[in-house]
């Protein structure tokens, strides 16, 4: 597939700054919580440095030929195996690999408001400071 480039790349110099070390209690959404933590600490842009825990159910998505395709991972006890991505208020993009109670793996983009903590989530964010 070939697509014409219509914009310049954004290249930022910068460094990583403060860390926010958090625990999410049950029924808290991963993306909403990450954005709330950044807001509370005055962080405009952050990266996920650590994420271990479990979800009640998982809701992931990916871009298919006909738009975003949803992947529902039934729980409870969907284990978060890794989370990556950037936190930017209202526009966060986080990806995760999770496992269901049978140990089956799923991967995709985390859907806002639909990935709620089951027992706990240890979430660590780090500020990105552009020069």
């Amino acid at each position: 597939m070939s697509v014409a480039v219509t914009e310049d790349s954004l290249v930022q110099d910068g460094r990583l700054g403060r860390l926010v070390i958090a625990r999410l209690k049950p029924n808290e959404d991963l993306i909403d919580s990450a954005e709330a933590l950044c807001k509370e600490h005055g962080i405009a842009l952050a990266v996920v440095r650590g994420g271990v825990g479990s979800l009640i159910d998982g809701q992931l998505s990916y871009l298919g030929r006909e738009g975003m395709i949803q992947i529902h991972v039934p729980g409870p006890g969907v284990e978060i195996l890794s989370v990556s991505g950037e936190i930017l208020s209202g526009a966060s993009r986080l990806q995760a690999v999770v496992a269901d109670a049978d140990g089956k793996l799923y991967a995709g983009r985390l859907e806002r408001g639909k990935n709620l903590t089951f027992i706990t989530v240890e979430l660590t964010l780090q500020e990105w400071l552009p020069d």
Partner: protein
Amino acid sequence: MTPHFAERAGVRTFIHEGPSLAPRLLDLEVPSCEELRIVLPLASNVAAGVLKALEGRRYGSAVGRILCGGAAHLSYHRMIVTDQPERPYDYGQPVVLDGYITFISGAITVGRDARGAPLLHCHAGFLDRNGEQHGGHLVLDKLIVGSEPLTIRLCLFDQVAYQVQPDAETHFNLLHPVLKELS
């Protein structure tokens, strides 16, 4: 209260047996971290290797990822239903794998137990020699590196730690961010 499911904005929630107390996000801030890359050799025990790499370093806790590698032996747990009302879901008996195991992804928190000793919390996904997928709560002191070295990246921070505390809501002992006195 009997644990049960409820719904919020079309999404399933879970009401645990214990009290649901505010705040719902517990968080602390530190100014920076120290980065560490650990490459564990074949046949080594991962918990022992990680703890040895951390020995003598000044840190409260650490978080990181399993970047790549393989295992010759491992043990992991999945969530099961119990008949205990205070803890209706818990980890089941270990699933033990031997042979050629390839890591797909993994996350590690190096926390502290109640006495301040390091405590490893790891979730990971991997493929066995038949290509079957597995993922869950990985026991690092039962994990033996195999086939190729195992690379782990950690971000160490001080003044704050993830420390185990009992959680009245879920009845699990869980890692909580706590302030540590400067050593």
